[in-house]
């Protein structure tokens, strides 16, 4: 029989050994402290479920004190941030489709005169409802905000216009997803999330496995060049990525009825670049990590912010500027815009060219890092 002091003694022995081993694995130790800090910053400061200051374009075909009050009132509400104002409908044309703005406010010609005559003219807000969360709060508040702003102008003989119903008719077009179905937003996004998760991690682990099992020495002793090893090891996972894409797209259609109105080739082209970006990322992780576990940790370390800051879980345009800038780095951010654009908004090649280039640039940098870091020798 063991005495209680012997039991404690042995627990202490294991405890001390574990503490030493924990400290010695610098990467894991670092992650244990970096992860919570990163999450605190992201959840505490970057993410906003009641997104404000959403970029808005305003198409004003008529300038008057009344229209200025409306624009000013919406801007003061903090929900809208007017990033452009024009009187030419062609300029606002595809801003919404490309995701540059979340709203387009249109004030038609003759609005002021009709309002003053009590004819309740129409005011149009087109919202990008492909992300229902981003669109809902701002549009729900718009009517009240405008009516209140106008109250200051409609005084004296016009006071009768400031009562109920408001002197204008606010029409909201929830474009691309009129019913606000969350699945339309989530399911195309999942394609990007699943590809990031599996491909970066699987590639990273496949490479570090060679180091962990000691087979890397053998591989390096044989006449294979780094580029050949990289392409050969990565290619199988490209097929995995293709299979995953097919499964998700079929499920999106059959199970969730997600509309698919854009060109398939454009989506597949985007998928291809995105897959390459993630495979290269996994390969780069494997040149940093020594073990499969570390490769997995690195993947998570990258995956978490890219999940949270890409616009997958929370509205991208609702985040503060610094978070949006960080978000622009992640290929997932650009991929989500591309997938949602093609599936829900029927965008064309030129409209997603920016996203394709951003993903391409990321890939080029990552591949360069990978090639520099890949150890041709065991040094």
């Amino acid at each position, binding site marked *: 029989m063991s005495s209680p002091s012997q039991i404690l003694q042995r627990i202490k022995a294991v405890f001390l050994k574990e503490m030493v081993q924990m400290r010695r694995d610098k990467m894991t130790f670092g992650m244990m402290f970096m992860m919570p800090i990163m999450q605190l910053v992201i959840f505490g400061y970057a993410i906003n479920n009641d997104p404000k200051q959403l970029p808005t374009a305003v198409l004003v075909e008529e300038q008057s004190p009344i229209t200025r009050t409306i624009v000013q009132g919406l801007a003061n509400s903090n929900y809208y941030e007017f990033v452009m104002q024009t009187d030419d409908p062609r300029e606002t044309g595809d801003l919404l489709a490309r995701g540059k703005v979340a709203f387009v406010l249109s004030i038609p010609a003759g609005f002021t005169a009709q309002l003053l005559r009590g004819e309740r003219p129409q005011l149009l807000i087109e919202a990008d409802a492909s992300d229902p969360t981003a669109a809902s709060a701002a549009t729900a508040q718009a009517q009240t905000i405008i009516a209140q702003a106008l109250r200051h102008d409609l005084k004296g003989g016009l006071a009768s216009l400031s009562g109920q119903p408001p002197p204008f008719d606010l029409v909201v077009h929830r474009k691309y997803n009129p019913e606000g179905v969350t699945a339309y937003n989530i399911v195309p996004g999942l394609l990007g999330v699943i590809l990031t998760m599996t491909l970066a991690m699987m590639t990273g682990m496949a490479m570090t496995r060679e180091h962990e*099992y*000691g087979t890397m020495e*053998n591989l390096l002793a*044989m*006449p294979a060049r780094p580029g050949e090893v990289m392409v050969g090891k990565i290619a199988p996972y490209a097929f995995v990525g293709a299979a995953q894409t097919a499964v998700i797209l079929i499920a999106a259609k059959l199970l969730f009825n997600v509309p698919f109105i854009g060109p398939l080739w454009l989506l597949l082209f985007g998928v291809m670049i995105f897959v390459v970006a993630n495979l290269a990322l996994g390969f780069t992780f494997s040149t940093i990590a020594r073990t499969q576990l570390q490769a997995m940790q690195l993947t998570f370390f990258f995956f978490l912010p890219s999940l949270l800051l890409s616009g997958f879980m929370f509205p991208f345009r609702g985040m503060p500027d610094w978070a949006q800038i960080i978000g622009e780095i992640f290929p997932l951010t650009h991929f989500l815009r591309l997938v949602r654009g093609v599936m829900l908004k029927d965008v064309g090649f030129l409209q997603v060219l920016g996203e394709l280039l951003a993903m391409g640039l990321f890939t080029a940098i990552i591949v360069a890092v990978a090639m520099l870091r890949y150890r*041709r*020798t*065991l*040094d």
Partner: protein
Amino acid sequence: MSDDFAIDVHGLVKRFGSKVAVDNVDLQLPRGEIWGFLGPNGSGKTTTIRMICGLLKASEGSGTCLGFDILREAAQIKALTGYMTQKFSFWGDLTIRENLEFVARLYCMPDTARTVDETLEKLELTHRQHQLADALSGGWKQRLALAAVTMHNPQLLLLDEPTAGVDPQARRDFWDEIHRLSLEGMTVLVSTHYMDEAERCDRIVYLANGRKLAQGTVPEIIEKSGLFTYQGRGPGVRRLAERLKGYPALKYVAYFGAALHISSSSREAIEAAIARETAPDVTWSETQPTLEDAFIAMMDDAGIDQREHA
């Protein structure tokens, strides 16, 4: 000049941080010979082999392997060299056949299937070709590894402790195969801890603390050590051993089976010691120093404490 040598390297130095793993090693290995690479663990054998085949970059020094510069032409060297690592480093989750196929393809060998078939037959592993490599015993793994690294008919074979942990019969078969390959013209550099294996080599190189302490045939090395060795037998040797270790002139006091070996560069010193430390039940006789006696004496001369490397 370097055409006659498979390996011709000078002044090789390898540092890892502030640690010097290999310190100024020269090696001229004529084509077609089998050389043994001996020395305690951590003496720099593996590091030297890795520098020769381009897996590590030498910090200093230069040289050629099979006529190619070891610093700049690693790719050419790799194509003509077979390197068997200390630890089994083929893919345990691939079958025997798949491992061989992978190697054959990587070396761009024509007719992969036939080459692999022939190799399997030679290995007598045809009936087990679809088993996972991990399922093989130590001896078979080592045979598979040797077959895999020689499949592309390399000119030079670098073997890093190939027989560690392998049973005596398998070791003997392994060495038969090495000699057969040597007859075909392959040059072999093999590191080992086994003295009997060292004696099967044309020449041996002894490394300690990263430095080359000796090189030559077995008799040459024993001769050069200038050692005299006496052997004591009898039930009393155990008591004598501790006392004899107190004599600084005796370089080496150790058991060989039941016998006690004492060595010194001075015959008088040995005779004086055994005359003083008499025991009625111990009989002494002079014997031929072994390779091991010579190595330990050399480490002693070089100022290396052998217990650090035990």
